[in-house]
Structure formats: C-alpha cells, structure tokens
C-alpha cells in the first residue's frame, strides 16, 4: 500500500487545472444543478432529499405517538385532514397505525439515515479528502442519485394506493408479507431500485478511494472518515444483494403464486391457503438479517467517521490510537457478516447455532469499544473548542456508547428471548440511531456547511437546536427501556392499554409522546438555521475556517468543478495538529513544510 506514494507521483503531470476551471462556465442551469455529474452537486441533491425523507419519516412517528399516548381519542385539527380510510373522525385505524409503523422504519433507515450518512457525506467529501477532482464514475454517480430518487418517490407513492402502503414492519417478515395487500409489492419494487442505487454508489466510492488518491495519499494518511466510508461501501456492496434476492423471491410469492416463504398447510382467515407450499418462512428472516445486521454498521460507521474528524479538529490533537481505530473498523466490517442471527434467537435455531452467534456478537462489541475509547482518550489533554459541531460530536460519544451497552442483553439468547419484540429493543436501537448517529450527522452538517456555502450556520440557533434535542431524545428513548423491561410489546396499536400488566407503566407513553413533539419543535430551529444561514449566515473569510489539517479545506470555497486550484501532493498524516516546531497548531496535509 505504501508504494502509492511513489507510483502516483509521475501521474501528477497529467493534471491540468485550467481545463476544469474553463469547463463549468458554459453549463446550463439544468446540467449544472439538476442533471449534474459533479460529486458535490450530487451530494447536495442527496442532502435535500434525505433530510426531507428524514423529516417525513419522523412526522409519521409523531402521528403514531398520539395514538399510543391517547388511544382512541380523536387527534385535534390534524386528524381532520386525513380521510376515512386512515383516520375517520380523527381516530386512527389499526391498519393505518401499522402502515405508519412500517413506513417510519423503512423511510428512516433506507431513505433517511443511510443516504444522509453514506451518500451525502460520502459524495461530498470522499474526492475532497483524498485529493481527487471527482468520483471515478461521475455518470454512474448521477444514475445512483436518480434511481434513489425514483425508488424513494415510488415508496411515497404507495401512500396513495387504495389499500395504503406496506404495513408489515420495516422487516417485512413472511408469510404475513406474502399475503398482505398491494402496498407490499410497491415496497419490494422500490427497495430493489434503492438497492441498485446504493450498490452502484458503493462500487463507485471504493474505486474512487483506491484509484483516485492524490500523490502521497497512502492508506496510512487517509482520514478516518474515508476509512469509515470505505468499510461502509464494502458492507453495502456485499450485504445488500442478498436482500435484493430475497425481494425477488417475495415478489414471486406475491405475483407468480410460488411458495418460497409459505409452508405447507398455511391457514389464512380460517381457510387453507391455496398454494403448493413447501417453503420456509425463516428463509426470509435469514436473508433479511444478512443485510440487516451489516446495515446497522452502514448506519453507524459514517457517523463515527464524521465525529472523528470533528473531534480531532476541535481538540487540536492527533487521534489517540488512530492505527488501532483503522484495524478495528476493518475487523468490525468482516465480523458484521457473521452476527446476523442474533436477531432470530426466538425462532429456535438450536443451541449450537445460538452459541456461535452469541460469541460473534460479543466479539464485535470489542472493535466498537476500541473506537469509542480512542475518541474519549483523544479528548484528554486537548484544548477543546466547544462550537456547535463539537457539541453534537461530544454528545454522540456517550449516547452511542449507551446504545451499544443496552444492546449487550439483546446479544445473549437467555436475556434476548424475554426482551424480544418489546419496547426495550426499540429503546436500544433508537439510542444507537437517533441520539447516536443522527447527532453525529447533524454535527457533520454544521461542520462542513461553511465549505459548501461559504457561510457558517448560526451559533445561537445551533445551541437552541442542540440542547432541547439532546434532552428530549433521552426523554423519548430512556422510558422505552423501562417499559420494555416491564414486558410491553413494541407493536401494540393502543400502546398497551388493553393489557392489565402494562397499566403501571402506561403514563410513560404520555411523557414519551410529549417529549417527541417537543423534539420536533426543536428541529424547527435547525430547519430555519439551515435555510437562513445559506443566504444570510456569517461569511467565512478563509477557505479553512476551523483550521483543519485535512484536504477538503485546501479547496476554494465553495469548491469549483474539479475541486482544487492546484495539483495536490500529500506529505503527512491527516490529524497533524499541534506538531512540535510547527508555526501554527495545524499542519495541512498538502503543505510540504510543517
């Protein structure tokens, strides 16, 4: 790997920056901003769409929280806006509740968080941080974005079907999904399109990272964010196709009458279901979770990468144990392919298989703990700047750590079986994704906003966004752990009101719902700040306002088509802060003398 340094040198003679400067002048609005092949524009297109999907998916949950807190009560004002198929008289129908639940999970995971972490930040930053002018396959990149958009809109369009969208949970377990209404067919088609989109993105990212590194950018000098994106891309590349295969199988079951997931002698509504039978419902669970568990790391790793960049820059220190973090993330990537069956302990796999998956699940917590510990230790002795991106990054560490710790009981079969399908599971994985990953992604938006727009986001509004979000997130998800330990099932339409054993903990439902609505209100500060600062924010007077050492800040602001004003050569490690004998407390990677 280290030979990249020497070999890539002689190629730098090929670079002609004048070409890139002249080529973007005579582009029409459509080819520059809409059908663009520029990785930065594509990243920003992904940003707008994934933030929209994130907000939309969040709103679905806000509706559900009314039904959970006040089951059977008509929802004032907003409830009137829905039709008789979903909320007659403002009271939510059970079918509609199920649809909202399924679409909340699907949209948040596949259209919100994953595109935001992987496609937005990956597209915008990978070429900038490795010193490349664009992705290896720019037209393929555009195709990825447009197929993502088509898949996403197709998913949304299923809300207008007579029977409504898919309603079988984001996991779409068979045989229920095989026999449910048409929304599930749209779900499968749209997932197939989204999978193709992320598949093409991931092979594009990997090729770019391997082949387009600037001269001197060895693998040891890649920022941790690039490592995180690289491992994420491999996970998407290899774990998503099995779900595509599973989607084809389920489509055949639904459209051609096959019975891959339908066992013999299946009764539906009291009648023997008329198929040949002989299938296996558990096959779906295994194919789904073979994607599903690497998917967890697809969600987490980009946020870890973002947080690492922000912590290194804002502590003015090298990351402690940086090489150990690299090896940890590689190990974590490999191991994430052999832990999936800890999602299916309840299916009675047999003790040997359970023992295997328990062991791998316990082992995979080690690299995650190494990474989080390295980031904590980095704080020690740093001169920390508490700006808004840093606040989000700092909050990410304990929140994500807490999410990971609450997962340990779920990794062991003995404790997982009573906790399976309770609110404890919801509390656990939302701690990982919402107070964990989403805070990390917000940190990234605040941090790189000045590079993309030339203006900073407002600090006061940032604080008004951060503190309420942090507090309400904990008010939402911590009580869920308590409810789950008390045995409250996660999919109850009435929030557990009809179950006597749950009565002692039902008051938490009201607390959680109000906290969720306040959390939504806090997001308005972000939305306003985002659009306000784009046009009226404080201008940055330097291309490198945070005094960072990595390459993306060596570009003009905002970076033009072709990114760099001059050919880039890399001379040092990514986190070269406070080097001894250096005139400044940061030494950019592309600067020869420290």
């Amino acid at each position, binding site marked *: 790997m280290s030979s990249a340094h020497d070999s890539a040198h002689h190629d730098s003679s090929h670079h002609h920056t004048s070409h890139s400067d002249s080529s973007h002048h005579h582009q029409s609005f459509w080819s520059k901003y809409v059908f663009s092949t520029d990785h930065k524009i594509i990243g920003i297109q992904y940003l707008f769409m994934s933030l929209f999907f994130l907000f939309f998916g969040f709103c679905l949950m806000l509706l559900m929280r009314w039904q959970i807190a006040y089951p059977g009560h008509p929802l004032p004002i907003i409830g009137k806006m829905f039709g008789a198929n979903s909320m007659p008289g403002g009271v939510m129908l059970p079918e509609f509740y199920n649809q909202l639940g399924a679409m909340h999970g699907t949209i948040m995971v596949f259209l919100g968080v994953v595109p935001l972490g992987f496609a937005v930040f990956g597209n915008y930053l990978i070429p900038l941080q490795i010193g490349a002018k664009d992705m290896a396959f720019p037209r393929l990149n555009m195709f990825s974005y447009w197929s993502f958009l088509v898949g996403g809109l197709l998913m949304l369009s299923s809300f207008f079907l007579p029977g409504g969208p898919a309603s079988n949970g984001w996991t779409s377990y068979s045989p229920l999904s095989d026999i449910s209404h048409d929304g599930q067919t749209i779900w499968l088609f749209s997932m197939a399109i989204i999978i193709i989109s992320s598949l093409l993105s991931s*092979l594009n990212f990997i090729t770019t990272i391997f082949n387009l590194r600037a001269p001197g950018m060895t693998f040891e000098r890649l920022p941790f964010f690039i490592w995180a994106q690289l491992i994420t891309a491999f996970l998407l590349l290899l774990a998503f196709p099995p779900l595509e295969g599973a989607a*084809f199988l389920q489509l055949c079951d639904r459209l051609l009458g096959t019975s*891959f997931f339908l066992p013999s002698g299946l009764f539906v509504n009291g009648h023997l279901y008329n198929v040949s039978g*002989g299938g296996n419902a558990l096959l779906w669970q295994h*194919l789904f979770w073979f994607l599903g568990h690497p998917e967890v790391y697809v969600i987490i790793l980009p946020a870890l990468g973002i947080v690492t960049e922000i912590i290194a820059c804002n502590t003015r220190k090298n990351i402690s144990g940086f090489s150990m973090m690299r090896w940890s993330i590689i190990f974590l990537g490999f191991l994430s392919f052999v832990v999936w069956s800890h999602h299916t302990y309840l299916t009675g796999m047999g003790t040997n298989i359970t023992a295997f998956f328990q062991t791998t699940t316990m082992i995979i917590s080690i690299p995650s703990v190494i990474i989080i510990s390295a980031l904590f230790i980095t704080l020690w002795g740093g001169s920390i700047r508490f700006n808004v991106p840093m606040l989000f990054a700092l909050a990410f560490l304990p929140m994500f750590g807490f999410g990971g710790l609450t997962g340990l009981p779920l990794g062991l079969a003995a404790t997982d079986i009573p906790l399976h399908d309770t609110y404890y599971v919801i509390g656990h994985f939302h701690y990982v994704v919402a107070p964990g990953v989403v805070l990390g992604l917000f940190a990234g938006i605040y941090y790189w906003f000045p590079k993309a727009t030339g203006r900073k986001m407002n600090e006061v509004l940032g604080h008004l966004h951060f503190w309420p979000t942090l507090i309400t997130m904990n008010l939402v998800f911590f009580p869920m752990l308590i409810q789950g330990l008390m045995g409250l099932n996660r999919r109850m339409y009435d929030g557990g009101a009809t179950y006597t054993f749950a009565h002692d903990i039902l008051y938490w439902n009201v607390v959680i719902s109000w906290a969720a609505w306040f959390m939504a209100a806090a997001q308005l500060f972000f939305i306003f700040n985002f659009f306000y600062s784009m046009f009226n924010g404080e201008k940055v007077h330097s291309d490198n306002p945070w005094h960072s050492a990595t390459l993306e800040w060596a570009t003009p602001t905002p970076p033009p088509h072709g990114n760099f004003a001059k050919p880039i050569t890399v001379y040092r490690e990514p986190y070269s802060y406070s080097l001894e004998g250096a005139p400044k407390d940061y030494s950019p990677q592309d600067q020869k003398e420290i």
Partner: protein
Amino acid sequence: MHETEEFIPYIVNPREDTGLYNAKFGIWLFLASEVMLFGSLFSAYILLRVGSFTWPVQSELQDIRIGALNSVILLTSSIFFIRAWVALKADDIAKYKKFMYLVILCAFSFLFFKGVEYHNHFSHGEFPKTSVYLGLYFLMTGLHALHIIGGILVNIYYAGPGMYLRAQNKQWFINRVEVAGLYWHFVDLVWIFLFSTLYLL
C-alpha cells in the same frame, strides 16, 4: 465532457499500486456483488431443499441434453469473446467484429434453447407455482437470462454503434471491451453453477 484522462486519472492506464484501471476495478466489485446476489438464491435453494419433505428428481423434469448444449454454447461464446479481444488488441477490426458477432449469435441461440425449455415446461403444466423447485428454477434461470440479455445489448453496442469510441481512444476502447468480456465470462460461470445445481444434482 469531463470524463477525460486529465480530469479523472486511470481511465486508460492502470494505476501502478492497484494494478487496475478504474473500470476494471469497478467491474470486479460489481461482479462481487453479483456473486452475493446469486449466492443468496443458491443459499435459498440449499435451505429449501434440505428443509423439504419431498423434492422432485430434477433430471426427470429437465432435458439435460438441452442444458448441456447450452453450457457448451456459452463456453464457446467465452472463447470467441477472448479471441475478439485479442484481435482488437492486434488492431484486426474485421476479425474482432467477426468474433463479436459469433458471441452474439451464441447468446441468441442460448436464449432460443432456453425458450424451448420454458415452452416445454409450460406445455407440460409446469409453472413457477407448481413446486418450490420449479419456482427456484424459473427465478434463477430467468434472472440469469436477464443478465444474458443485458450482455447481448452491451456486446451489440461494442460490435457496432459503439465502435466510434475507438476512434477517440484505442486503448480506452480495448478496456471497455475487456470489462464487457469480464462480465460475459461471469455470466457463463453462473450458468455452469445453475446447470449443475438445477439439472444434475
């Protein structure tokens, strides 16, 4: 417009430390994902077959002679593809085109015989919904046939209308054909596994 060697390096020449030009790197990654896609279906096949009470004798449902003939056709087409690529590297365009046409001819005859098989199945009342085995057979060979059709489109493009790309950059065009060839060999290889699993086992 900006897909040129100055803007994006290693389109034409391989990078020294990775040993690959971009498209070759990309196609290997794509094939890796295809392995996982077909791998998931082969895993489904194993799990369903192992877990079922009855499984038809596959060779009784299939005409092994047609399957074997199709295997030979695809393997021959792979050899033709290599000869086409070698001819292209040697600047022998007439020979390149001749072998590309042979590849395309092989591909179409594969689809023809596949169609004959499907027709025979349907006329015997054998449909995807008849049994899990037939479902898997139609899904896996159907998905493979879609890959063949995709390959035919690419090969026709490079044998005919796409030839203008060669005038712009000869080596780049050779790379494109090589990448198309890698995909084509992969599709052949999948068929060998499909034939062994769905006909012979």
